[in-house]
């Protein structure tokens, strides 16, 4: 989706796409996640990754982290559209702050024997992935890191007998003493 939703943008506009990570603080009430997801599908925005969890139980606050792509104009729209939803407190563009840390956790199951098995273990060690389950013919690795690192690890496991992957999606937080 390269352009804002208008009947007049049928020819592609060639503004470059950017990837942004948005942190969205919301009132934790029924339907709030459906609203956010509905906004993205309804207006044709992309979701690359989405994570959500209650972060402050007493205040009923949840934090949604969304990784999305679009032209700068579309990204701007997405933030405004999120911000005007009634249960949304704040939207912070973590990418623009340039001071954020992003992490994702993945569990990666690999099946194999002999050389492949040794190689998988060796690479896991290099990536600081932990073994959290093992049988004589398989491992489950737990790996944490930014999205690129996890993608790279998974790519390396593929020829070694990759069975399946479960990923949390991206969580992000700002550096330094201040909160969002």
């Amino acid at each position: 989706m390269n352009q804002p939703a208008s009947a007049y943008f049928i020819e592609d506009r060639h503004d470059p796409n950017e990837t942004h990570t948005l942190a969205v603080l919301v009132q934790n009430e029924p339907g709030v996640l459906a609203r956010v997801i509905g906004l993205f599908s309804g207006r044709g925005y992309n979701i690359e990754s989405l994570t959500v969890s209650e972060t402050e139980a007493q205040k009923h606050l949840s934090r949604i982290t969304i990784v999305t792509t679009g032209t700068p104009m579309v990204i701007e729209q997405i933030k405004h559209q999120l911000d005007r939803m009634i249960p949304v407190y704040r939207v912070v563009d973590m990418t623009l702050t340039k001071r954020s840390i992003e992490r994702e956790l993945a569990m990666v199951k690999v099946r194999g024997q002999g050389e492949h098995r040794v190689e998988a273990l060796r690479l896991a060690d290099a990536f600081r992935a932990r073994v959290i389950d093992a049988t004589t013919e398989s491992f489950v690795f737990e790996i944490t890191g930014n999205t690129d690192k996890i993608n790279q690890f998974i790519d390396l496991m593929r020829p070694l007998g990759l069975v399946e992957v479960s990923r949390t999606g991206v969580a992000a937080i700002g550096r330094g003493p201040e909160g969002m």
Partner: protein
Amino acid sequence: MSDKSHDPNQMTGAAMIVRALIDHGVTDIFGYPGGAVLPIYDEIFQQSHIQHILVRHEQGAGHAAEGYARSTGKPGVALVTSGPGATNMVTPLTDALMDSIPLVCISGQVPTHLIGNDAFQECDTVGITRPCTKHNWLVRDVNDLAKVLHEAFYVATSGRPGPVLVDVPKDVQFATGTYHPPRKSDVHRSYAPRLKGDATQIRKAVALLASAKRPVIYSGGGVINSGPEATKLLRELVEVTGFPITSTLMGLGAYPASGKNWLGMLGMHGTYEANMTMHDCDVMLCVGARFDDRITGRVDAFSPGSKKIHIDIDPSSINKNIRVDVPIIGDCGNILGDILQVFKAEAKKPDIKSWWQQIAQWRARNSLYYKKSNDVILPQHAIQSLFEQTRGKDTYITTEVGQHQMWAAQFYGFEEPHRWMTSGGLGTMGYGLPAAVGVQVAHPDSLVIDIAGDASVQMTMQEMSTAVQYELPIKIFILNNQYMGMVRQWQQLLHGNRLSHSYSEALPDFVKLAEAYGAVGLQVHKPADLDGAIKEMISVKRPVLFDCRVAALENCFPMIPSGKAHNEMLLPEQANDEATAKAFAGGKALV
């Protein structure tokens, strides 16, 4: 127990709903009963503060509430049952969302223990209406009901207004709980629309306005939504600056059509002078409008040489379609007031004489020209005649959707805000008749006219029965061209005149139909009889269906073909086959 039974705030959910409506100053609601709202109807039966208007279809209740809201500035209220009652509300909710109309819809739901069971007349109402409301709620506990209802009114009417829906399961309507009157803490802490404009931005705007050589003010429905003060300030700003002003379809009436700086409506069917002024201006002040595609035409050729100031209460309207230079977020009324204050203190009226001379040349093209006939009534003539005969009267106009709607916008001169109710964003055929019902309920002694098309009017015709029941003397003025004229026009211009399914086959006899409803039917064919018939329509104090037979194949001009720029508009006298073919080349895929 005995204590609580004396507490006047202890009541059932159904009683709370009626009580909350009263506390919010509601005097009229539009609705239709059913199993899941019977407890609420029982409460309505036992009180006399609120008048309930029984419609004939829930869509009618929604549009009537919209008409009521737009003509009063107060929220409209609709009450519907679960399942089909709620799904029938989807069109008016979407319509109200697109046009920023404050609407509070209360829907019944199956009892909480049945939710999710595919119970009789169950549907996921909050799921279905989530994308077509500003916000919605399912209330599972009677003790949350008062808070939610108060919040619903606040959300509907504050910030950028819009429709909200509160879904109330039947057991919650029966349950007893504690009511409280509206209070500040009823509102989401996360919802705080910004009203005041940023002072630095306002100064920048004034500096631009003061230096303008070729300025234009482009105003929209937001000015009307903001209230009478905004309208007053807009008029004052035009006076103080001497700038030309145009408006969107939704904004008609904020500046009077008889005002000397008025350019007429802009956009796809706007006047030549309005669109050329927009195209060639050097400073554009957009107030409460949203650069919709019907307004901008081709975006990359939209007003290429101008600096743009955009006042809007909704930050998501800024830079959505058109990049602007000075965005100011907040309430139009507030910001116009601030701009005026700074302008008066620090700037003087720019000299724009040569700009006005240029505009006069565009005006001289007479882009709304049409050729009158002695044999058939031209639709434009019918609207002009209606306008002349209702001028100075206390008149409200609603419309359906199609050519007649655009002709009404072009030829009916609106002097005041809140007098013009039309479905702009969604373009809902069937809006006008029920909207007229709502307007007439709000203004029982005024003249309320729905300028209708022969096809549109059949979509919600059943509300004639409502009008008759409540003695609402609405006038349905049908420009009967026996076609879905707007569809036919596009087929002629873009699809080789293959008139696929746009002929109004088997039209009912509107006069007999009126009589069947217990209303008055009038029909006119000849231009010579038109004025007399309109007089008669106005003098009848009952609902009227007026079958005005007009030229069948008339097209609505001027027109900017979809995807073309403002300076590529097609004027009526140029619309020969060759020019038309050229103008519309390549635009087929657009809407």
